[in-house]
């Protein structure tokens, strides 16, 4: 948590710098001496992993932007040219594409950690809200990045998503159409759309950087949550300086994550994408099954589960919006799932299962029992946030929380 700065500049130059722009003090306070609870488990390493993913995406993206041209006539060709004839173009391209997938693997685990351990509860509500904003920005960025390839799936994905706003015509005639055409810049998805998708795709990652800075700042005020859910009481016995303990531990976790990343990058680079996106965009040829990338499938399932077009869009966005309110929906006085009832634990894992099931169903055609199951899991998803979290907190019998982290530690040893 925010602690007294202990940085002592050791050289004349660093003293001079510190009195003008205390950037080294800032790095020392946040990354070196920052008191971090000693009992964090490996679920806490995904923040660092996500930071690395962001840096990787930005670096590979900037390199690729030097070779890419956002015009429908050449976009696909510029990527193929860079991949075939550019210096390690294939490596940059696959790192960026696989990096996107790994980014979402990490973010879903990171969010799951937050949900299980009550990291969204007071005093970390703003931290959580900024996190959901980062997630939304990531989704927008990833969607736009996929569209830039201008393969057939890119074109039709943009057509489907921008079509969402068409449903507003049922509320006020003409509103939807106007909005859709304004977003696309044209009557249908065309070169105008591609150009603005590129502009925004380049912009949003830097907005994400800004949000991440706010996210870490909001974290550093109260300090990290920890697996017991009990706040730090005695920093001396319950925390460790971030460096070297957590720099090395996060380093190890990042390295382990990179094993998975390297495995996918070099041997399964196209496993998570759709073959249809290796066909150039053709407005006259719709893919047999329009499906988004895997990380959007759960929300896509929710969209298809609701029988009305407008309803589907509303519920799809609501699935993300509802997360904003988790800090206030959850009435439990106990933060961490570790010390909550078995009911909570089952409810939580059912939520995870529902999300995975919805992702599976999102790839299927909306017919038969696929739709009915999507509705079941969608209802459970909303029920978790809107019914279970409020009610469980009021009625559950929790296990005895440890009085402090120190007590939990000494009990464990």
């Amino acid at each position, binding site marked *: 948590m925010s602690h007294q700065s202990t940085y002592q500049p050791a050289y004349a130059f660093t003293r001079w710098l510190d009195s003008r722009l205390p950037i080294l003090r800032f790095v020392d306070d946040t990354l070196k001496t920052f008191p971090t609870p*000693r*009992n964090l488990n490996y679920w806490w390493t995904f923040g660092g992993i996500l930071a690395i993913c962001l840096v990787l995406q930005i670096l590979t993206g900037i390199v690729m932007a030097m070779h890419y041209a956002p015009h429908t006539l050449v976009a696909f*060709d510029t990527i*193929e040219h860079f*991949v*075939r004839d550019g210096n390690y173009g*294939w*490596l940059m391209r*696959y790192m960026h594409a696989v990096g996107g997938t790994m980014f979402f693997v990490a973010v879903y685990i990171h969010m799951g950690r937050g949900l299980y351990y009550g990291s969204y509860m007071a005093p970390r509500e703003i931290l959580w809200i900024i996190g959901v904003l980062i997630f939304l920005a990531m989704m927008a960025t990833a969607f736009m990045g996929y569209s830039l390839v201008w393969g057939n799936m890119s074109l039709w994905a943009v057509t489907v998503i921008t079509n969402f706003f068409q449903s507003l015509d049922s509320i006020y005639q003409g509103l939807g159409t106007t909005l859709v055409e304004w977003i696309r810049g044209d009557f249908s998805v065309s070169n105008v759309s591609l150009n603005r998708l590129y502009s925004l795709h380049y912009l949003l990652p830097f907005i994400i950087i800004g949000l991440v800075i706010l996210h870490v700042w909001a974290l550093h005020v109260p300090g990290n949550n920890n697996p017991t859910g009990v706040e730090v009481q005695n920093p001396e016995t319950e925390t*460790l300086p971030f460096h*070297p*303990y957590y720099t*090395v*531990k996060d*380093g*190890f976790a990042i*390295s*382990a994550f*990179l*094993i998975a990343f*390297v*495995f996918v*990058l*070099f*041997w*399964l*680079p*196209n*496993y998570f994408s*759709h*073959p*249809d996106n*290796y*066909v150039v965009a053709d407005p006259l040829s719709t893919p*047999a099954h329009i499906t988004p990338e895997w990380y959007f499938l759960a929300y896509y399932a929710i969209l298809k589960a609701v029988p009305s077009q407008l309803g589907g869009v509303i519920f799809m966005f609501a699935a993300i919006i509802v997360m904003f309110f988790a800090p206030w929906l959850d009435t439990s006085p106990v933060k961490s799932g570790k010390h909550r009832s078995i009911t909570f634990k089952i409810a939580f894992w059912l939520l995870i299962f529902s999300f995975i099931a919805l992702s*599976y169903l999102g790839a299927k055609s909306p*017919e*038969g*029992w696929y739709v009915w199951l999507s509705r079941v899991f969608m209802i459970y998803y909303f029920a978790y946030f809107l019914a279970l979290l409020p009610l469980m907190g009021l009625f559950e019998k929790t296990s005895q929380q440890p009085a402090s982290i120190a007590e939990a*530690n*000494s009990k464990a*040893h």
Partner: protein
Amino acid sequence: MKILSQRRIRTLAASVTASVMMVVASAALAAGDVPHIEKQSWTFGGLFGSFDKDQLRRGYMVYKNVCTSCHGMKRVHFRNLKEPGGPEYSEDEAKAFAKEVEVTDGPNDEGDMFTRKGRLTDTFPSPYKNDKEAASVNNGSVPPDLSLMGKARGATRNIPWFMEPLYWIYDIATVYQEQGPDYIYALLTSYGEPPVLKLSEEKCAHKEGYKFEDGACKFELIEGLNYNTAFPGHQIAMVPPLYDDAVEWPEGAAPKTKEACEKDPDLKWLADENRCSMTASKHARDVAAFLMWTAEPKLEERKSMGLWVMLYVLLMTVVLYLSKRALWRKVKH
């Protein structure tokens, strides 16, 4: 004896579960009539895969002599034929292939377009000026450019829904990225006569895509299309392009004895002609491998670099883990 004894309940539960599973499985199978594309074995598959140069060369011969009558390949240059990781022809051989084609260039200093012999820097030509010409010659269908075909097609499977996650795990464990060549091989070898089903006239009326004609339930094949079990919808505009010995062996590459020939199930020893014949299946395999190379020319470089990178990352992980442990052992946590 109690009607609902423990044993009876258990038997009942087991049979109910089994029948539910069967209903679900058959519903799933009935719902999805997707072609089941078989996995083939490719030299470039797996963790340590690489292209077979001879296969790529035979595949290029198939492409050049059979496919170029209708298909273009605008992303591949003649110089790619001599680059490492592919058929690796010599510079002279690649130049010779380039010289075989006529390329439109210009305008010259007089402002006219002119034709010249191809160069290494030129791309593989398309037989048609544009898509409209292609469509007018091919009954409205445009033969697609083949540059990325090895990656632009997937391999569907007819499996019940509960088996899918197991297949995903298996695919990841075997690093299955050869869906494209598997599909291409299946497509090229799955032409056949449109099926005739043994159904009554009444049942035939309910069967989608079939018509009761001349006393039999026949598949309704649209005029001008060809029946193919691997193609989605089963009706493809492309005529079966391959047949036995459609393309000759490259100079000196043919096996000279019956024993050497019959080692490969795709080859046939013709005793009366005393030569090893390539079947249509062999041509299909070779051209599918070639199309994988044109789609992924950096495949070999990718996999070999991957080995070094993986080694490095594994080593780094071990070192960081040991560091973490050494550091944390000293503190109570």
